[in-house]
């Protein structure tokens, strides 16, 4: 019951935070000048009037909020896709982002865990020292640096994969093999730092568990090292890591890497976001920022809650 109450309280606080963020972003973006463009069509003028663009920011705010609550209408795109629903514009752009984010996640998590386990079992051997020497480099570099390195050495020098992503008009869909082939480099670029950080976390947790006394007991009662590692240590080691992975998994639905999308020319939400800022497409900007903020808050929340769910030792305050 306590857990439920705590969960509800956290969700309530999250929604409140989201609402405040919504308000701040709305007020700030609407305070920028937004004159009626030359040669506006009647439909555009009508739409602008309906959204109250000639009224004060406060009035616009309540119209906008009212539209969202009553009709789930997040406004209109003025620039990117003229006079279309802002939410439609956004949802269409989510597909490529989710594909590359999820694929890189699916590649990175098992590899990261395997690498972490491998290194943890060889603590203080040469593999561990070599790992320690390079891991900071891999963790401290953002994915787009790897993107450039992969682009130059793999795509340009070796001729494998492609420099840029295929255009969606050239292929049958996002899951077309040619499309996926051209998305391999961005996926890899995003996976590399994630593999690095996951493996480091796994190594740290697992090597701590491997040194604990229950491990000694497990070995005493006759389990092999491998059995003891996977049956006892691994589960315990994953307790602090799983919430991180769950949080990272949810973040996949937000802009994984805005820069990666720009480097490879993938028309995802990250690129959309940059476009909205550049072109000042107000309503699409609102949808995108509120969605990103929501995903970030939600990921944090689920990650926090899963801590207490996974580890019975952690009691809710």
């Amino acid at each position, binding site marked *: 019951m306590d857990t439920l109450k705590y969960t509800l309280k956290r969700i309530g606080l999250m929604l409140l935070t989201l609402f405040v963020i919504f308000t701040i972003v709305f007020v700030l973006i609407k*305070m920028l000048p937004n004159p009626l463009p030359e040669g506006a069509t009647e439909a555009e003028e009508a739409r602008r009037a309906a959204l109250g663009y000639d009224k004060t920011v406060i009035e616009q705010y309540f119209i906008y909020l009212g539209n969202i609550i009553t009709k789930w209408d997040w406004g209109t795109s003025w620039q990117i896709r003229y006079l279309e629903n802002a939410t439609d514009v956004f949802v269409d752009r989510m597909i490529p982002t989710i594909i590359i984010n999820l694929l890189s996640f699916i590649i990175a998590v098992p590899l990261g865990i395997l690498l972490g386990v491998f290194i943890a079992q060889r603590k203080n051997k040469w593999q561990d020292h070599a790992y320690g020497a390079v891991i*900071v480099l891999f963790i*401290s570099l953002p994915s787009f*640096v790897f993107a450039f390195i992969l*682009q130059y050495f793999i795509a*340009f020098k070796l001729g494998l994969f492609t420099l840029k992503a295929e255009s969606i008009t050239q292929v049958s869909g996002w899951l077309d093999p040619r499309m996926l082939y051209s998305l391999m480099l961005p996926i890899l670029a995003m996976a590399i730092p994630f593999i690095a950080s996951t493996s480091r976390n796994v190594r740290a947790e697992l090597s701590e568990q491997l040194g604990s006394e229950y491990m000694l007991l497990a070995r005493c009662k006759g389990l092999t090292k491998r059995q003891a590692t996977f049956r006892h240590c691994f589960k315990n080691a994953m307790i602090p890591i799983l919430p991180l992975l769950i949080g990272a998994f949810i973040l996949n639905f937000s802009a994984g890497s*805005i820069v990666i999308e720009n480097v490879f020319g993938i028309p995802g939400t990250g690129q959309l976001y*940059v476009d909205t800022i550049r072109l*000042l497409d107000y309503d699409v900007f609102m949808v995108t920022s509120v969605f990103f903020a929501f995903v970030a808050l939600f990921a944090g929340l689920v990650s926090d809650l899963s801590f207490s769910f996974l580890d019975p030792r952690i009691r809710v305050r």
Partner: protein
Amino acid sequence: MEQNNNNNHISQSSFEFVGVQTKETVLKTKPQGYYSEVFKRFIKKKSSIIALALIGILLIFAILLPVFYNFDTTMSEPYFKSARPRNFLSSGNYTRTLGLNEYYNLAGIGVATQFDDSNPDKSIAITIDDSMGYKYQPIKSSKNVDVTFMGLSRSGKEVSIDSYTESGFVYMPITFAEWHNIRKFEIESGRQVIYPMVDRYSSYVNENGELRGRPSTYLQNANYWYEIKDDDSMPFWASDANGNQKENQYIDNYLKFDINAPLLEEDRAIHEDLLGKVPENGDIMLYEISSGSASIVVRVFTYNEFVYRHGVEPSFWFGTNNEGQDIFSRLAYGLRMSLLLALLVAIISLIIGIVVGSLAGFYGGKTDLYVGRVQDVLIGVPTIVILSLIFMHWIQTGAISMFVGLLIGFVLFSWVGYARLIRTQFFRYKGNEYVLASKTLGAKNRRLMFKHIFPNSLGTLITQFALAIPAVILTEVVLYFLGILQLSNGQSTLGVMINEGAAFMTTAPYIIIFPVVAFIIIMFSFNLLGNALRDSFDPSQRGK
């Protein structure tokens, strides 16, 4: 009794010292404080030394080296775009495959630069082979290859090109005063800036005896100073006395003074002003007068013209980008600004974070709750939103400078991290017995907070401080890279430079390599430093 009395009378000298017989060992080492131990652990690590060395190199690069460098960020030389790095490791040459006509055009630059005013006939007779190895010859070496272009195989050349003389000659309108200045410079320095004009307009008779107009390539490209064929832009070769064509000797197409053409009175005055006399018939002209204009057109050699304007030879340590801007000085400037920004952000956030975090952590309850919600909002709004809104609202309108805007934007949410850290530490330590003891002795809240509790969190704070610097730089680089923030002239930053370079990754990779490597070093060194600090401050490492 007797014996007791006797004991009193034993003389001092009968006693013998048997030495100290105690189980306690005397501590030979000096007592060591927490921080001196941390320091010792820190300097013992290899990684922290590497990190400090890298940071030192960055600082030398960003602050010290530009002092010894001739060019700055305001330079923008279109004729020196994509000049390759010229330093002790790299010569500034690059390799490219050219069609034969392009090859002869480039090689012609080297020949034409040897034109000598005082001895025109002899200098025109120079062949390509004579000019090889000459300083201004852009072709440094060549070998024959087959070039496949649009399915057709032609013979071509794979050449090593000097990217500094590659642009060769350009037509340039100058004023009369500039003419005199350049001529003075030519005499003083011994460098020739102004080379003969090319006859760009008059018609000529081609090899089939047809009367043809000048090909349009003559109009823009000042490197076509020799007679070319209409169809493939290949040069006509000169013939020797026996009428045999001499391989690789161009036929010049220089503009020559024609005494028979009508000479306007005002043009005569100009000739006299520029040369001190009216040229004689057949003299090779160094300028072209456009009647009624206050300027003349000359054909200048870009390399020496650069020396004339800058006083030094073009030689860019890291080359130039596609707009002819110097990469080294831009990189150094960008690094200075980024590091300064990150450092200031870290310091200001640290101070705000300490104050807010201590208050929230010490008083708890309502204060903590409200502060916590404000923090939630601040870190909930994506960084990029805050910064782009600040950019649009204040920086673009000119209310505040880019630097101040970024500073405010970053501080706005980076203090949260420090505050949360300190709050946690306060929660952890404020219930400890030693704090209670001090309170019982009558210590004020301020003393409890800053004398007793706060020092516990110093280690984590310093670590956070070191890690915050690369985080700020990363966000800044990303925002510039995406073009959300834009710079005014004469400024530069890593993000913009990486963005510029990305487009030329396959043709001129050095443009992106230098900023990316600098970025990698920043990220790596500060993260390494942060990790080393974290390990050094780790209380569980005490005494190890």
